[in-house]
């Protein structure tokens, strides 16, 4: 693994940072009506970062500045995060066009995305903490972006949970630093093997508090439903999707690079995975608010995503399974939120007879929800298949069985949303106010899940 201190290795991140700075400065000086210019510049920075990340993905692995890993996990994290950030900016174009703080939104989203990339790429606990803060604090602000009662409450809960779990995480970092005599993963993996296992386990659990908070997994999941429901929909789409990418990348690194074989890492993650997916699914059953339903759905998806993390050290399939599932989940989940944004309603009953009002939108929703279930030929199906294979390959058949049972159970609440969509209306509600670019984006995302599933199905599966 080659070491270097070449700033070009961080070009994607620097592009995003540059975009943020330029957007911020531009936003300060252009009038409210032309804030789109700042948004465009910020998006351009993210776009440039995306291109740079794609180019960087072609190069070899390595580490830069002794704390930033350059490997497939980082590449996928960069591409997925920046792509998701751009989608969120596009989704926000409708509701936020001409908003007083349009630039602010863009800057916050990009900064949170930057923090998320750092979270996923860091190879040092201190950088991880810094990335955690960078990824979290803009997200708190975004949650309260609307400055309404519910948004403020959501932001406060989000922040308080983040603060508590961040403190726990710092405690864990401190314990591990003490036990491992260093903060870099390489040092830790060497020294923790000889440290007392009990202390290592305690420090590890504390460290995980912060990462699980970002991932929205049990027992740090409480903020997810409240924020998803209380924050503006586009923010909900962001905070339930983007931070997860970095969090799972970081969790994967911790599982593979930090946890010594003396500590019960796989067992810990397996229990967390089972608990998370089960709790998320069960709680989603009776929801009547689609955003709350999606929130619990993201919790259960976090549970599935924890399965490859649990088997990370035991099978080579874990890494592709995690990365593929992450990308597929991001596309599908953003699509589902795009539908919510398009229809501009949270109530389940408002989706009655959507198929007669907007057949294409209804079909898109069906594709996306079936995608979240993991129905072939969508992208998540391939991800789930890889995940099951990895779990069975690693000897975690029970975990695969739990995941399968949860998948079956999840059909129930996704169909609870889907059934009214295709019922015949007795008195059809008025047609929803639709924002054309958002609709097009929704169609694109739905098509992307199918295309991704079909293409990868052709290439990945025998």
């Amino acid at each position, binding site marked *: 693994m080659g070491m270097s201190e070449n700033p070009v290795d961080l070009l994607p991140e620097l592009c995003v940072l540059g975009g943020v700075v330029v957007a911020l400065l531009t936003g300060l000086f252009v009038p409210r009506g032309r804030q789109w210019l700042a948004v465009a510049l910020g998006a351009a920075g993210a776009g440039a970062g995306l291109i740079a990340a794609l180019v960087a993905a072609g190069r070899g692995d390595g580490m830069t500045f002794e704390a930033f890993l350059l490997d497939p996990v980082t590449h996928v994290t960069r591409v997925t995060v920046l792509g998701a950030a751009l989608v969120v900016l596009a989704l926000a174009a409708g509701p936020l066009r001409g908003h007083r703080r349009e630039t602010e939104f863009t800057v916050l989203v990009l900064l949170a995305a930057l923090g998320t990339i750092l979270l996923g790429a860091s190879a040092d606990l201190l950088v991880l903490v810094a990335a955690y803060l960078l990824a979290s604090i803009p997200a708190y602000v975004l949650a309260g972006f609307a400055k309404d009662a519910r948004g403020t409450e959501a932001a*406060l*809960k989000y922040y*308080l*949970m983040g603060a*508590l*779990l961040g403190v*726990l995480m710092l405690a864990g970092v401190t314990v591990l630093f003490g036990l491992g005599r260093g903060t870099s993963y390489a040092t830790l993996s060497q020294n923790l093997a000889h440290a007392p*296992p*009990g202390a290592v*386990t*305690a420090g590890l*659990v*504390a460290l*995980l*508090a912060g990462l699980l908070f970002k991932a929205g997994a*049990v*027992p*740090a999941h*409480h*903020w997810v*439903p*409240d924020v998803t429901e209380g924050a503006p929909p586009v923010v909900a789409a962001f905070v339930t999707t983007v931070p997860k990418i970095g969090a799972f990348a970081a969790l994967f690194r911790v599982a593979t690079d930090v946890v010594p074989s*003396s*500590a*019960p890492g796989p*067992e*810990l993650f397996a*229990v*967390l995975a089972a608990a998370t997916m*089960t*709790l998320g699914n*069960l*709680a*989603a*059953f*009776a929801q009547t608010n689609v955003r709350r339903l999606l929130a619990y759905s993201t919790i259960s998806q976090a549970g599935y995503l924890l399965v490859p993390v649990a088997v990370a050290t035991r099978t080579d399939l874990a890494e592709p399974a995690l990365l593929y599932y992450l990308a597929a989940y991001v596309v599908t989940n953003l699509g589902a939120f795009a539908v919510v944004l398009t229809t501009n309603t949270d109530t389940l009953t408002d989706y009655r007879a959507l198929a007669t009002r907007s057949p294409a939108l209804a079909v898109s929703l069906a594709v996306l929800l079936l995608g979240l279930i993991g129905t072939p030929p969508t992208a998540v199906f391939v991800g789930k298949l890889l995940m099951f294979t990895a779990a069975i390959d690693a000897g975690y058949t029970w975990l695969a069985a739990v995941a399968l049972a949860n998948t079956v*159970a999840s059909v*129930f609440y996704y169909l609870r949303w889907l059934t009214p969509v295709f019922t015949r209306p007795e008195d059809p509600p008025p047609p929803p106010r639709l924002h054309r670019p958002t609709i097009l984006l929704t169609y694109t995302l739905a098509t992307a899940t199918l295309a991704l599933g079909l293409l990868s199905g052709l290439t990945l599966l025998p």
Partner: protein
Amino acid sequence: MTVLVALPAIVGAVLLLVGRRADRAAPTIALAASAGTLGLAVVAAVTRPSLTFPLFEGLPGGLAVDGLSAVLVVTVAAVTLAVLGFAAGDMPASSRFFGLMLLFAAAMLVTVTATDLAVLLVGWEIMGALSYALIGYRWRDAGGVRAATTAFLTTRAGDLGLYFAAGCALAGTGSFALDGLAAAPAPWRDLVAGGIVLAALGKSAQLPFSFWLSRAMAGPSAVSALLHSATMVAAGAYLVLRVQPLLAATGWAATLVAWAGALTALLLGFVALAQRDLKQLLAASTCAQLGFMVLAAGTAAVAGGVAHLAAHAAVKSLLFLGAGTWLTVLGTRDLAALRGAARRLPLVGVTFGVGALALAGVPPLSLWLTKDVILGATGSWPLAGVTLAATVLAAAYSAKALIAVWRGEARPGSASRSGRGGGIGPGVPFVALAAGAAGLGVVVVPPLNEVWARTVGAPAARPHVVELVGTGVLAVVVLGVGVLVARRPPKVRFAAFAVDWLFLERAVERGIVRPVLALARGLAWFDDHVVQRAVVGAAAFSRGAASGALAVEKPVDAAVQGLGEGARRLGALARYPQTGKVHTYFAQAVVGFLVLAVVLVLVR
């Protein structure tokens, strides 16, 4: 050959398919097609074409015009043209009517030119179906449709014999060919003969099938003129004449046919005499006259029989047209009400008179000659006696009809409507048919009888002078007596037996229809109470079995329900920690991580 059949068939089918849009042009088109058919028929009669085509594997079908067919083809085509000419004035312009008539003529042409039983059956069946459509042409009139149904079902019952015969012919001779039937081995030959005789008697309204013709009079007059003179009923007579060698070969069949024909001629003669309705009288007389032809087939007098058939076709269609004209103009066909009808429409009256005199067998008209040929061939005394009696009756019923329309003065007033039956155009069929009715008998008079016999392909026959004089005098005497009787009409009450067509229909109603319906009801009862009960029982058994399965299913169902309920409870439980209050979240998170750490540390 093909064109002869195809022309009326295609034009008729097109008229039917085009439907109402062609109504106005239909009479003209039909007349043109019919005239063309007559021309082709004459050509075919001279050129004698034949046609063979693959019908079944190894069993070619064929159409051919031989001597017998030639006579029939020309007769059918000529009568069709005459009747259509009349119908063009009498019937409303309707493509349905004219299309059906043309198709019917085509079917008849197929029947009389078929060289094998299979093709004959095709024409025979189409004819039967179209007769239903034509008799029931006025379908809004329930009586007409019922009459059509009676006619159809009765002739169909006879038709079964033809199917039977075709099957036996195939089994016996390995082919359907008509000319090979007589050579069939013993049991098959008799079975084929039996089947054909049954079918022919049914189609020709011979005893015991006569009643359907009475009912068929409910149809339009033009239909009666075509179906009940030269076609349909004539087809039966044609068939027995055609297979005369077969009948002769069996021995019994010829005798049976001869007696059936003779008795029909006699008994239906009585029936005709007893009728008060002109069309019913004509219908009964048709049966009687067809009896003579069937008799001829039984006594090997084919030449005479065919001559009688052709002459009778002209006579009877002429009489039906006359009756139809009066029905249209005067609105009645009751003999009493037709008093003096002939004087009001002179053309119709005179031609009807010619026809009636011919029917009566008055010299020198056609039927006098042809009937005598048949009479001369009877052979045995009882048969000759019956036939002679039938001849007398023929004179009597003809006299009745003739006197009914000619006696008394023409009532003034409505004669102006004679345009219907008079005039040049509509009059042509009457004149033409009257000429045929009067003169067609010459074919049996020497020296023409030799030519005729060669044409028909049967031994030449000619009436004997003594018989001719005898029957001629007899006919004139009967006519004279009739006129005398008519001066002071006696209060004759004909037996209801005769008036009601020998109670044949009633007999069929009691003897066949009711038993069949009773049997059907019985079977329906059986179906309802035994078969259905069995089915219901089976269903009940299945239901029982199903409830047994249900007993198994219930726990499964309960388990599923329980699972759902459990999931619901767990769902509620899962949402319970989501209090919305941050301090409980804090507590939960801290406790969660603590428990996790403690458990993992202790477990390890």
